[in-house]
């Protein structure tokens, strides 16, 4: 494969232009992710940051990593996030009042600590270390080089992570399907159970609303299916004034009918 790259440390003009256009956009997107009102917008801005990172990876010869970043992170992980956000509907109307005491100072402390840790780690790894680029590593081809490393030097970590993924997938399946351990009762069995209940009055189930209504005045509460007054039908104003009339709870047990 021919070597079309420059010496390490030199950036071609087009790549510099691309960097200086995309990098501020990525930073703005990352900041926007924190400050936008809607959760879905935040997720989309995060997806944009991931795509920008992938473009930078590809620009620096890490082709496989960049493409896989898009396929896995943007295409699968962020899609999952979006599904959850869309279905659950996290809203900005959620209360920002914190229930846990001391959470804010603790979280600020933890964030500063984490930031310091990351900065120190990265600077230890990169400051003063010579960049050698990926030309030598990619001498056999980017994919081949990764495959070589992954299946010889890092095969143990690779297999452990894949075992973890399989466990997670199995766990998700078990959690999702855990309710169907009993078989559902068939229609015939349900029907028999209805007629063998405490009294035949329960055979047809509870009546619909309004069946036992005796009044529809505004100062008489409506009845629930078991005959007791419905609390939501009581007018608070009338109740406060003492103007609500009572309605006796309706008894469902069948009275003895005298045979002549």
């Amino acid at each position, binding site marked *: *494969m*021919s070597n*079309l790259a420059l010496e390490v440390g030199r950036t071609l003009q087009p790549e510099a232009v691309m960097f200086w256009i995309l990098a501020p956009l990525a930073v703005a997107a990352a900041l926007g992710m924190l400050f936008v009102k*809607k959760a*879905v*917008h935040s997720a*989309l801005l995060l*997806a944009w940051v991931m*795509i920008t990172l*992938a473009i930078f990876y*590809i620009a620096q010869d890490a*082709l*496989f990593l960049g*493409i*896989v970043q*898009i*396929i896995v992170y*943007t*295409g*699968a992980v962020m*899609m999952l996030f*979006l*599904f959850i956000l*869309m*279905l659950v509907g996290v809203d900005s109307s959620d209360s920002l009042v914190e229930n846990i005491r001391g959470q804010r100072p603790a979280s600020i402390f933890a964030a500063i600590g984490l930031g310091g840790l990351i900065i120190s780690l990265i600077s230890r790894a990169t400051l003063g270390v010579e960049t050698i680029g990926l030309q030598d590593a990619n001498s056999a*081809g*980017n*994919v081949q080089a990764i495959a070589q490393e992954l299946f010889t030097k890092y095969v143990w970590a690779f297999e452990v992570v894949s075992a973890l993924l399989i466990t997670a997938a199995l766990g998700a399946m078990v959690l999702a399907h855990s309710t169907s351990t009993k078989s559902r009762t068939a229609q015939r069995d349900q029907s028999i159970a209805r007629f063998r209940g405490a009294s035949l009055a329960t055979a047809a189930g509870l009546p619909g609303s309004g069946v036992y209504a005796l009044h529809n005045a505004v100062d008489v509460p409506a009845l629930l299916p078991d005959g007791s007054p419905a609390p939501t039908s009581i007018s608070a104003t009338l109740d406060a004034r003492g103007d609500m009339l009572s309605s006796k709870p309706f008894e469902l047990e069948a009275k003895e009918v005298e045979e002549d």
Partner: protein
Amino acid sequence: MSTAELIGTDPGWITLVKGLLIFIVCVLATLMSVWGERRIVARMQQRLGPNRVGPFGLVQALADGVKLALKEDLIPKAADRIVFVIAPIISATTCFMSFAVIPLSGKVTLFGHETVMQLTDIPVGVLYVLAIASVGVYGIVLAGWSSGSTYPLLGGLRSSAQVISYEVAMGLSLVAVFIYSGSMSTAEIVSAQDQWWFCVTLFPSFVIYAISMVGETNRAPFDLAEAEGELVGGFHTEYSSLKFALFFLAEYVNIVAVSALATTLFLGGYHALPGLGFTESWLGGWFTVIWFLAKVIFFFFIFVWLRGTLPRLRYDQFMKFGWKVLIPFSLAWILIVATLRVLSQQGAPKAAVIGFVVGVVLLVLAVSTLFESSKKRRISNDALGEVQPPSFPVPAIPGSKTITRTEQLNG
């Protein structure tokens, strides 16, 4: 030199010209696909398709596009305006981007410069197409969510879930192609099909890819999520004029894109039919474009044929099919292919290869026989036993022997 190096010597303006040509080809392909689909499906239903607008109705799709552009552009009140507008843009742009790595021709001369009709050739070209498809799903999901009503949201989520599921199957079916061609670059895969096309040597992969490409593009028989005429319209319910036109465009360009990918990976790309290899040098190498287009049109015809023939599958039926049938088959096939490849690369004796193949065939037969017998046993257990006839008169059970009226009347 290799295709990648050849493309690497292109001056910037050649790349722009190629990009423009590919864009024009895509849009023309969409117009022709819309026309072709309507005409072909109509002939399958023993009627003519559109034949009024332009000769043979060829301008119909263009007229439809102009009509859509001039329609009233509605944005629902509950819609999220920014995302509502961005979603069709994402869908439309990503489907065009898939064409960047598809080799449309062999070596040709474009304005005095020797090149190939392929915009770029990266060593992970096919993965790039998969990545673009993953980003394209965003258009569907965001369209459904940003419409601000429940049915587009549910339709969008179902559509995207389906696309993601069949993307997995598609990716797995391509692994065998990578193993056999030794590279993920589209140009190298095409050149690896000089002798035998992969649709012959890797037939199961071809079948799995063909099925998953139909599922990926939300086409019949897998189009429940946007069933025209059954549901309102799925994720694009609330979309009106030009944005709807963009979704429409995106659907057809996706069809052409997956067909082009299938052509490249399984049907030998721009290579001529075996035996007609001398045609590849006609027209200064441009005849290969005709071969490529002929194969893409063949795949498109298969898409339309499927749509005109098969009834729609239910959503859970085809999700089950995608996950429980296609993916396990793909994985098993990849194991077989990998073993065969390793055996052939390490120069194993022919007996080992034949023994392995026979072993696999026997295993498949044994598993399928076990499956069939367990299914038969399950069916016979479920069947109703003999029902005791009751002692009082009952009307005749449908399907039993027909009782003539004379017998009924005479008792």
